């Protein structure tokens, strides 16, 4: 039986360009766009020598949805729903960035109560995002059960958030000058109940998963990132903090009312997949601390959930430009707005943290085993729709 290559199956532009490597003995494989561990539609072209990766190159664009162009072709108020869909796992982070940028440009004040609600929403969403990452990462490493525990815990937050926001995943909660709806009096109590419950779950996570010797073997010393490499690629979020760079927008470029909360920025110096894992686990606990303090602030916080003088729905941004960055679950979320005073914004630029974090991958994966590459890819916590935007 002949084993000649099949011309009609012989790949597209990327594969052909990639295959022009020097060594004919290697195996070129496509990981994705339909591959269980690329979480959506990321495609990675790998050149394998046995199971070792010679070269790996991410190919992007399979879920490019033109978010920036959509922002430039409609009034700024109509762009809100998109913000819940760029990174569907940390929608509140994008909501927050966009709100901050527009408010800076338009000079809109946000009442105290709205700020507390914003912090609660963002931090709750950060916990759900990290929980989902935790489950999905372990799924990448071949453990099936933790994701079910993570989803069960995440479900409680989603039930909690559903009441004020009206949605469970692609939140569109923020408005210029506040948030869309206030919470009722029972919310703070429920929030504290959840914080208590979730704290009780972490010891079990640690015993079942974090201290497992197989997991340690799959994460420790895997994909070590030097601080220099973080700076070169502009990686942010837990990826940077796992490599000893204590960069957190909530502290470094403080916004909203984050300066009033008592929390630490978890940082580890190892830089490997385990460090990123532990940073995220510690971050969830810090988010719970913030939530606890925010729940205490909530009854006293006054000013309503939205500024009464907030812009009307057909608001035109004044001419000028503004940039706002917030700390998302995956890193620094930046929104740049430029307006010429017209009906639609002149330019919207979205800075997705996942894009910079993914760009590390090609260099990190070089020389590793295929299984380690999966572990590294998971430890970067990528949301592909955010990367492609």
């Amino acid at each position, binding site marked *: 039986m002949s084993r000649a290559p099949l011309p009609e199956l012989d790949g597209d532009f990327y594969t052909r360009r990639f295959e022009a490597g020097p060594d004919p003995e290697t195996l070129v494989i496509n990981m994705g766009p339909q591959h269980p561990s690329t979480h959506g539609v990321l495609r990675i072209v790998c050149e394998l020598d046995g199971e070792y990766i010679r070269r790996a190159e991410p190919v992007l664009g399979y879920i490019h949805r033109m978010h920036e162009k959509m922002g430039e072709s409609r009034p700024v108020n109509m762009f809100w729903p998109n913000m819940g869909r760029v990174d569907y796992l940390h929608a509140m982070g994008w909501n927050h960035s966009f709100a901050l940028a527009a408010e800076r440009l338009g000079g809109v004040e946000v009442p105290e109560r709205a700020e507390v609600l914003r912090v609660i929403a963002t931090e709750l969403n950060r916990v759900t995002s990290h929980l989902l990452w935790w489950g999905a990462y372990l799924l990448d*490493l071949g453990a*099936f059960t933790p994701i079910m525990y993570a989803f069960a815990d995440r479900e409680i937050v989603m039930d909690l958030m559903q009441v004020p926001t009206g949605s469970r995943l692609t939140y569109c909660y923020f408005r210029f000058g506040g948030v869309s709806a206030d919470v009722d009096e029972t919310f703070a109590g429920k929030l504290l109940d959840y914080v208590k419950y979730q704290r009780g779950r972490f010891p079990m996570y640690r015993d079942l998963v974090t201290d497992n010797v197989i997991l340690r073997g799959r994460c420790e010393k895997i994909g070590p990132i030097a601080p220099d490499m973080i700076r070169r690629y502009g990686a942010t979020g837990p990826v940077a903090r796992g490599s000893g760079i204590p960069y957190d927008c909530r502290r470094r470029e403080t916004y909203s009312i984050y300066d009033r909360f008592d929390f630490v920025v978890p940082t580890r110096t190892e830089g490997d997949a385990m460090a990123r894992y532990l940073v995220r686990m510690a971050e969830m606990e810090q988010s719970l601390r913030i939530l606890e303090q925010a729940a205490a602030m909530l009854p006293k916080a006054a000013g309503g959930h939205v500024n009464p003088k907030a812009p009307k729905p057909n608001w035109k941004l004044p001419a000028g430009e503004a940039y706002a960055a917030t700390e998302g679950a995956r890193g620094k979320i930046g929104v740049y707005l430029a307006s010429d005073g017209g009906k639609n914004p002149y330019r919207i630029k979205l800075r997705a943290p996942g894009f910079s974090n993914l760009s590390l991958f090609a260099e990190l994966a070089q020389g590793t085993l295929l299984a380690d590459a999966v572990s590294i890819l998971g430890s970067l916590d990528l949301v592909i729709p955010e990367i492609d935007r």
Partner: protein
Amino acid sequence: MNLHTLAQSLGVALPLAQMVIGLVALAAFVGVNAVLLVWMERKVAGHFQRRPGPYEVGPWGLLQTVADAVKLVGKQLFTPPGGDRTLFWAAPFTAFLPVFVMLLPLPWGRALIAYPLNLGILLVLSFAGLNVLALCLAGWGSNNKWALIGAARAVAQSVAYEIPLLLAVLAVVFMTGSLDFAAIVQIQGDMPWQWLGATQPLAFVIYVVCAVAETNRAPFDLPEAESELTAGFHTEYSGMGFGLFFLAEYANMIVVSAVATSLFLGGWKGPVLPGPWWFLLKVYALIFLIMWFRWTYPRTRFDQLLNLAWKWLIPLALANLLVTAVLVKLA
């Protein structure tokens, strides 16, 4: 009319008739059991994961696997273009058929043996080696890069783990001086402290670890590692091609658990209940243990897997064998 006269009237030898009847009975048992085990796995997984598992089809979801099997049978059998048709379709059968032979010499009760054989262990171990051939054929015949990597992993893994497995079994053979399952069970007593697992705990642990690796179950499911290799060696199989591999996995679990039960857990022996019940109980307890591993642990990496075999299990099994040999000689 007993079996003897039936065999005479049909003009066939008694052992042959016994073997044929045994094979048919085992085929029925394995078929029903694989269906039951898939259901059990899903229920076990479900309850580990705070969800009920299948419960819609039939009582307690018992018919779910039947429904799945019907679906699989109804699917188109697809041979990948450029694949080797013969090897591709030989693989699932090579995976599935040896299971029946491996179950032949196992004693289910005092006289309940499909085919008594004084070299039973040799038969089981040699046919167990066919499994790796099946995975290798599947990987090669698929003309798929993921499948090929899966097959390469399967070969390295099976070769590495067959050695400590053999050494662990050899320790038992040294102690009992027999390769016959029935004789080995006969030596053991009713109570757990009279089982060979109590006198050979290290061999038992090594055997269980190797059995999980040999059946390619998590945490050692590297040949199919779906988060790395999509589905590994069976990436290209559709319908019952995949179904046979799936059945073979569960049938192999029965075999390794049954062998472990006979060698280490006193086989069909136990107080109060009749033999076959004890045998089934122990086999299912072991299968539950293997399922427990799968739904608890992440997957190991390939070099870690081989390191475990070459650096830990083989030296330990050799030391165990040496100590056993010395003690047997002294006793």
